């Protein structure tokens, strides 16, 4: 079936929905395509909060938020983008409140704010020192759930057109201009062609390259890999965030909000070990530092019960705080660990959480192809799948929700402008048979006789990535991971699946997703192997120092006939010269 719609939004998480709202408010015909019902999107699982320098509890300024973001990202952040993030965070929060989002409140009815890792203000006693600031707005520990629900509700109110359970499989590009997408209607198996003036990818992250992850099964990097196969580079893939407090072995997230409310991290000897690694911020240091500290404690034999975990301790917070501010995550502890957080210590380990890298864009979410910022006209990316870059080498807690909304909105606004501009030019013609590549790929998998099982390949990839491309990386491990991934890619070509039916063929769609994950694992490992320094989320055991002279630059990984090619792109520095990063 063929559809013609001015603006297409692929993905119905926070980024996609905000863009769709802006488009529909501006009267642009828009459709949202999502492989799941919108309310299933991973934005709904975000727990802790969304930062904005409202200053509701104490003095705060967007400049401080901007500085924290840049320092948190170990100076790989593009500072012009960080400025936009910090400024527009404030208007975004008020807009959300005006849309009815039920934020927690102060006793006098204003928006309450809590601490979050790496968000600071100067210490009034000693301005050279920085202390935590109340900057994160929140709705208990279901902030993302309330954001997703609120935006979806507003989309219903504004009659946004949804194509639910439409899985996008390809991007249509003609003569350097984006002209639409190819999608399969999951229910029937029918391929649809969507002809558009502007396309936004807001397809979320790709934590499923790892075995221990906080990410949903659906986070398979579709948008990033689809664009990559059409010539768009993947940017800064070696920077993946490992969140310190994942439920041991399951990876389910226990939000930083627990530590914001005062929870401790303790090792097997009962010590609050963060006092040694980050004397000023302790448990509220940025995530990359805490995850490394945890691994170091475990390696030094100070893991909990002599094992490979440490503990989150919330016992002293008391029932009232836990019930009012952390109900969901404490429920996770009860359900998935059969422990009572009021009386038991909680075993945790770092969990693969957030992709700093993704599709390179400018500050209006327009996709760019190289260090000269050559645009791919009509193609946009926003949210976790995009790399603006506001997070640099390490994202601060709460800054993703800000990112997806601020840049989702900017995407919608610029797409509306672009669609209007195209009115003069006319629609880009489609290539002759835009579905052919997709149909071919599907037929290959459905008819595959090689006998390889997708489940086995996926499991091996995930284990390899967690073991060899995790919190700490070294040359030998990365080389071995590179070889494993290329062997898995060969095996992937000999895949066989069991489900041959058309409707709801999730066997087939999971196999497609696995193909994308393998591309992403490959660029992640190659980027990590090339980058011989340690910065933010990328910690090389053999190169433990940051090396600004050689590596203050973004990585761009290209898909070519000769394999992956790496290029680099300068970092935009407007205000803050790189300094040593201490907390």
């Amino acid at each position, binding site marked *: 079936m063929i559809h013609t719609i001015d603006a297409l939004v692929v993905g119905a998480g926070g980024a996609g929905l905000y863009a769709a709202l802006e488009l529909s408010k501006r009267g642009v015909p828009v459709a949202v395509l999502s492989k799941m019902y919108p*309310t*299933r999107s991973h934005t709904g699982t975000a727990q802790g909060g969304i930062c904005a320098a409202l200053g509701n509890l104490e003095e705060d300024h967007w400049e401080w938020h901007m500085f924290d973001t840049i320092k948190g990202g170990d100076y790989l952040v593009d500072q012009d983008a960080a400025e936009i993030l910090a400024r527009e965070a404030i208007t975004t929060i*008020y807009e959300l*409140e005006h849309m009815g989002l039920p934020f927690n*409140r102060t006793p006098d009815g*204003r928006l309450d704010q809590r601490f979050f890792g790496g968000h600071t203000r100067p210490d009034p006693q000693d301005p050279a020192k920085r202390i935590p600031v109340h900057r994160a707005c929140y709705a208990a520990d279901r902030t993302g759930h309330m954001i997703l629900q609120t935006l979806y509700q*507003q989309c219903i109110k504004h009659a946004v057109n949804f194509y639910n359970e439409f899985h996008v499989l390809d991007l249509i590009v003609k003569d350097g201009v984006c002209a639409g997408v190819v999608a399969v209607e999951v229910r029937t198996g029918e391929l649809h062609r969507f002809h558009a003036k502007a396309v936004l990818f807001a397809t979320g992250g790709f934590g499923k390259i790892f075995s221990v992850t906080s990410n949903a099964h659906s986070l398979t990097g579709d948008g990033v890999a689809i664009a990559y196969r059409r010539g768009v580079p993947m940017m800064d893939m070696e920077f993946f965030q490992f969140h310190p407090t994942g439920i041991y072995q399951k990876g389910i997230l226990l939000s930083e909000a627990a530590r914001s409310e005062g929870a401790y991290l303790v090792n097997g000897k009962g010590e609050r070990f963060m006092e040694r690694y980050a004397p000023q911020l302790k448990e509220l240091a940025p995530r990359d530092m805490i995850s490394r500290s945890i691994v170091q404690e475990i390696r030094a034999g100070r893991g909990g019960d002599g094992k490979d975990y440490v503990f989150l301790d919330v016992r002293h917070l008391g029932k009232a705080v836990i019930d009012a501010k952390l109900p969901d995550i404490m429920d996770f502890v009860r359900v998935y660990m059969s422990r009572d957080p009021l009386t038991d210590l909680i075993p945790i380990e770092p969990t693969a959480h957030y992709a700093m890298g993704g599709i390179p864009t400018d500050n209006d979410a327009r996709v760019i192809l190289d260090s000269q910022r050559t645009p791919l006209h009509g193609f946009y990316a926003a949210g976790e799948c995009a790399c603006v870059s506001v997070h640099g080498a390490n994202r601060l807690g709460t800054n993703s929700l800000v990112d997806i909304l601020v840049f989702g909105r900017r995407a919608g606004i610029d797409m509306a402008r672009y669609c209007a501009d195209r009115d003069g030019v006319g629609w880009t013609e489609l290539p002759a048979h835009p579905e052919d590549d997709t149909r071919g790929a599907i037929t290959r998998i459905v008819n595959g006789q090689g006998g390889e099982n997708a489940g086995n390949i996926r499991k091996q990839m995930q284990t390899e990535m967690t073991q060899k491309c995790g919190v700490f990386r070294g040359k030998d491990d990365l080389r071995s991971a590179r070889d494993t991934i290329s062997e898995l890619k060969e095996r992937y070509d000999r895949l066989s699946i069991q*489900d041959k*039916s058309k409707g709801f063929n999730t066997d087939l769609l999971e196999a497609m997703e696995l193909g994308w994950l393998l591309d992403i694992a490959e660029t992640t490992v190659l980027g990590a192997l090339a980058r011989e320094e340690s910065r933010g989320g990328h910690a090389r055991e053999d190169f433990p120092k940051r090396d600004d002279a050689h590596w203050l630059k973004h990585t761009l990984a290209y898909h070519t006939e000769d394999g992956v090619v790496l290029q680099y792109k300068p970092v935009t520095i407007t205000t803050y010269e790189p300094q040593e990063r201490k907390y």
Partner: protein
Amino acid sequence: MVLHARHLKIKRFNPEKDTKPWWGEYDVEVQPTDRVLDALHEVKWHHDGSLTLRRSCAHGICGSDAMRINGHNALACKVLVKEYKGTITIEPLLGFKVLKDLIVDMDPFFAKYRSVMPYFVNDEAPPERERLQLPEQRDRFDDTTKCILCAACTTSCPVFWSDTEYVGPAAIVQAHRFIFDSRDQGKEQRLEILNEKSGVWKCRTIFNCTEACPRGIEVTRAIGEVKQELLLRRF
């Protein structure tokens, strides 16, 4: 890692091949602390790739994988294998058309959701900063903001099974969230909708919905509060 053999009995149906549903039986090796969802994935990834279900977050937040497990509605990702003795029997939700295996047609569910104006209404120009709301006003509707639209409540309701006109508990929960929000102005219209034949008066206070809710929402109580509000309006 200790693995245990467990027996799963799963109701299967593929309209492209089957004229009626049948039971698939599988023996899988799982850890007792695994989720039922993990056991289903074990079947799908290593026994029979054609087993079809919806899932995403795997920790009870996205609402994708509500199903009947040993006769009770639950999210497969929020119950552990060790909670069940013997065979674990898994079926799709009741009350909606089965499209394939554990997947039911959710469109009618979302249509009912949309029918209650599930969005914030306030046409006054907003202030520059936030609208004020005291913590106790915010608490008034806290419980119903937790809903993840998984349909476990609606599809456990005997009234809904016998009368699909009924808007169902989930939609009422969504309406409740706005009716009791001090900032919202759409209350009268929503109450009007729920006062209709298909609305709250169909509820027979059976409490299945409350029992089924994986988010612990007091669904029956929320429905009761809406009824109360309607009764108050009569005076």
